[in-house]
C-alpha cells in the first residue's frame, strides 16, 4: 500500500494519476478528463471570459476593410465572464478533492458499483438541482447586480452597436440625486408599500369574515357556501385578472349597469385614485378565498373550552372574537401574512394585466400612477431599455424584501428544527 501512496504527489500535476495507480480507474479517468478538457477548452475560454468581464469589450462596432462588421458584445462578454468564474470555482473544487483523495488509502474491501453509488448518493442526487440553481438563479442574479454598476441603457450604450462601460456607483447617485428619478422612486415606493399592506389586510379580513360566518352555528349547508367562496381561488389567476380588466373597463358591463340606474360612468381604471381602489377590490376577490381556506382549518383547531369558559364569564360575541379568535388566528397565520405581504409587494401580474400601471403620470419617469416598483422595473427593462436603472431598483427591492422573508423563515417550522443560527 505504502509504495503506491508515494505517487500521490503526482496528482498535483496530473489529476487522477494517483487514483489510477490505486486501481480506481473510473474515478481516475474522470479526473484526468476534467484536467484535459480544462487545458484544451477551458483555459482559452476562461482567459477570454475574464478579459471580457474586466474590460466589457474594447472593439467598437465598425466594418473592416472586407465590409464585415467587427465588434465586442459587452453583455455577452459579461455573461461569459460570470460563467467562467463559476466554472473555475467548480474546477478548483474538483482539484482539491482530487489531491485529498490521492492521499487516502485504497479501500481494502472490494465493493460493488452499486455500493459505491449508494455511498456517494447524496452528491449524485443533488447534482442536477445544484446545476440548475447555479445557472438559472445564481448566475442571473449576479448578472443583474453587476448591470447596476454599468451604463447599459438605450440609446447610447446598447450592444452590439455600442460598448457598455463600468461606471461604479453613478446610477445609485443619479437615482437618489436627480429630481425626476428621485420623485418617481419615492412616489412609486409609497404606493407599493400602501398597496402591499392594503391588499394583504383586506383579503385577510374578508377571508376571516367568510370563514367565521360560514362556520358559525346557525348557518346551514356549510359545504355549499364554502365551495362557492373558494371558486375564485380555483379559477386561473391570469384569466380572472383579464376578466376584471374587461368588467371595469370604460365601456364594460359595470359602467353599463351604473348607466341603467341613471348614474354616471366611473373611470374605474382611468382615474388615478379610483384605479388604486379598484385594484384593491379586485385583489380582494382574488385573495380572500385563499385566506378563507386557511382560516377554516385554523378555526377548528382553537380549543373549544376557551369559548366555553368565556361563556361562563358572560363574554359577548364580539369580546370572544376580539380576545380569543383573533389572537389565535393571527398567531397561526402571521408567517403567511408576512409572506403574503412580500408577495403583494411584487405582485406584478395583477398590476400588469389589469391597469398596466396606468393612468400615465407625467411627473414620473417611465411609470404610471398604479405602477409598483416591480412593474416599473419591467417597463424600464422591456419598453425603455434602461437596464442599468432597472437593476439598481431591483437591488433596492431585494434589500427591502430580504429582511421580511428572512424573518418569516426564521419563524417557520422547518427552519426552527434546523437551528441554523
Amino acid at each position, binding site marked *: 500500500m505504502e509504495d503506491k501512496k508515494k505517487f500521490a504527489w503526482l496528482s498535483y500535476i496530473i489529476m487522477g494519476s494517483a487514483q489510477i495507480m490505486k486501481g480506481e480507474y473510473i474515478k481516475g479517468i474522470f479526473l484526468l478528463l476534467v484536467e484535459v478538457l480544462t487545458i484544451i477548452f477551458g483555459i482559452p475560454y476562461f482567459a477570454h471570459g475574464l478579459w471580457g468581464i474586466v474590460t466589457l469589450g474594447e472593439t467598437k462596432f465598425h466594418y473592416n476593410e472586407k465590409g464585415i462588421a467587427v465588434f465586442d458584445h459587452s453583455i455577452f462578454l459579461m*455573461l461569459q465572464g460570470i460563467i467562467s468564474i463559476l466554472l473555475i470555482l467548480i474546477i478548483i473544487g474538483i482539484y482539491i478533492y482530487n489531491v485529498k483523495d490521492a492521499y487516502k488509502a485504497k479501500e481494502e474491501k472490494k465493493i460493488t458499483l452499486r455500493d459505491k453509488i449508494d455511498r456517494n448518493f*447524496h452528491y449524485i*442526487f443533488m447534482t442536477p*438541482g445544484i446545476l*440548475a*440553481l447555479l445557472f*438559472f*438563479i445564481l*448566475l*442571473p*442574479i449576479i*448578472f443583474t447586480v453587476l448591470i447596476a454598476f454599468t451604463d447599459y441603457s438605450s440609446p447610447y450604450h446598447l450592444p452590439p452597436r455600442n460598448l457598455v462601460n463600468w461606471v461604479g456607483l453613478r446610477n445609485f447617485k443619479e437615482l437618489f440625486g436627480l429630481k425626476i428619478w428621485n420623485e418617481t422612486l419615492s412616489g412609486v415606493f409609497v404606493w407599493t408599500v400602501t398597496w402591499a399592506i392594503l391588499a394583504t389586510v383586506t383579503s385577510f379580513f374578508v377571508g376571516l369574515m*367568510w370563514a367565521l*360566518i*360560514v362556520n358559525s352555528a*346557525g*348557518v346551514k349547508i356549510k359545504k355549499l*357556501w364554502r365551495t*362557492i367562496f*373558494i*371558486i*375564485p*381561488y*380555483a*379559477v*386561473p389567476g*391570469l*384569466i*380572472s385578472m*383579464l*376578466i376584471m380588466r374587461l368588467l371595469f373597463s370604460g*365601456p364594460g358591463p359595470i359602467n353599463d349597469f351604473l348607466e341603467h340606474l341613471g348614474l354616471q360612468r366611473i373611470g374605474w381604471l382611468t382615474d388615478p385614485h379610483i384605479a388604486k381602489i379598484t385594484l384593491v377590490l379586485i385583489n380582494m*376577490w382574488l385573495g380572500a378565498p*385563499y385566506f378563507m*381556506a*386557511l382560516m377554516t*382549518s385554523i378555526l377548528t383547531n382553537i380549543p373549544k373550552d376557551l369559548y366555553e369558559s368565556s361563556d361562563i364569564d358572560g363574554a359577548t360575541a364580539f369580546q370572544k372574537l376580539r380576545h380569543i379568535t383573533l389572537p389565535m388566528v393571527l398567531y*397561526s397565520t*402571521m*408567517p*403567511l401574512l408576512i409572506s403574503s405581504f412580500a408577495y403583494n409587494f*411584487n405582485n*406584478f*401580474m395583477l398590476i400588469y*394585466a389589469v391597469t398596466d400601471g396606468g393612468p400615465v403620470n407625467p411627473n414620473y419617469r417611465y411609470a404610471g400612477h398604479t405602477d409598483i416598483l416591480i412593474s416599473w*422595473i*419591467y417597463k424600464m*427593462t*422591456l419598453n425603455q431599455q434602461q437596464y442599468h436603472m432597472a437593476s439598481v431598483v431591483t437591488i433596492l*427591492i*431585494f434589500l427591502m*424584501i*430580504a429582511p421580511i*422573508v*428572512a424573518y418569516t*423563515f426564521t*419563524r*417557520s417550522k*422547518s427552519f426552527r428544527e434546523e437551528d*441554523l443560527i
Partner: protein
Amino acid sequence: MKETTTPVPEIKFVKPKKKLTPKAIALKVLVYTFLITNTIFILFPILWIIGSSLNPGDSLYSSSMIPKNPTFIHYKELFTKTDYPIWYKNTLKVAFLNMIFSTILTTFNAYVFSRFRFKGRKAGLVTILVLQVFPSFLTLTAIYTLLMQLNLLNTHIGLVLFYSGAQIPANTWLIKGYFDQIPKSLDEAARVDGATNFTTFTRIIMPLAVPIIVFLALTSFIGPWMDFIFQSLVLRTADKKTLAMGLMEMVTGQTNTKFTLFAAGAILVAVPITILYAFLQKYIVEGLSSGAVKS
C-alpha cells in the same frame, strides 16, 4: 310588553334553541343576506364571462350576460379560425414537462437536505434561503441573454429549464419540512433490510409524502398556464405561442373585437383547471397551510 316578559325565562331554561327570539331572526336574516350578496359578487364575473362566450356578436359593447340566442359559434371558431389548438398543445407540453422536472429536482434536493449530513449542508440551506428572496422575475434580461447564448431562445425546453430552476429554492424548503416529519426510524429499518438510499427514497419517503408531492406537482403544472412575462420574452414565433400569450393578446390588442372569442377561450382553460383544483382540494389546503405555525 308585560305579557311577553314573563315567558322568556321559561324559553331560556326549557328549550333554548327551538324558539327564535326576534334578535336571533334578525341575525339570521343578516347572515344569509351577507352570504347571498357575497355569492353574487363572487359569481358575477364568472357568470358574465360564461354568458359572454355564448353571445352571437363579437364585441364587448353588445354582449349581455344572458344572451337571447345563445350560440357555441365562438367555441367552434377558436378551433377553426385561430391558433387556439396550437396554444393549448404548447401550454400542455410546457406545463407537463415543468411538472416532471420541478418535481424531480425539488424532491431530490429536499430528500438529501432532510436525510443526509454532509459538509456544506448548512451553507447550502442558507444559500437557497437567500436566493429565494431575490424575485427570479427581476432577472429577465439575464435569462434572455443566457438563453440566447445557449441557443434556447424560442424553444419550450428553454422555458421549462428556467421554470424548474427558478422554483427550486422556495419549494426545497417546503418539501424538506415535510420530509423532516417522516420518522427516520422508517429509513433505518429499510436500510437494515438492505435497501439502498435510492430505494429508501422511492419506496419509503415518496409514498408517505404523497400529499405534498401532489401539491408541488399541481402548482408547477398550473404555473405555466398563468405566466405571461417569460413566455413572451422567450417564445417568438406563432407555432410556439402559449395560451397565456394568446389570450392576453386577444384582450390587450388594438382591435378589441375578439372579446367573445376570448371569453370562450378563457372558459376552456378555466374549466379543466377548476375541476383539477376541486378534486385535489385536500392536498392544496394541506400544502398552503404547511407554512403556518402549528400549535
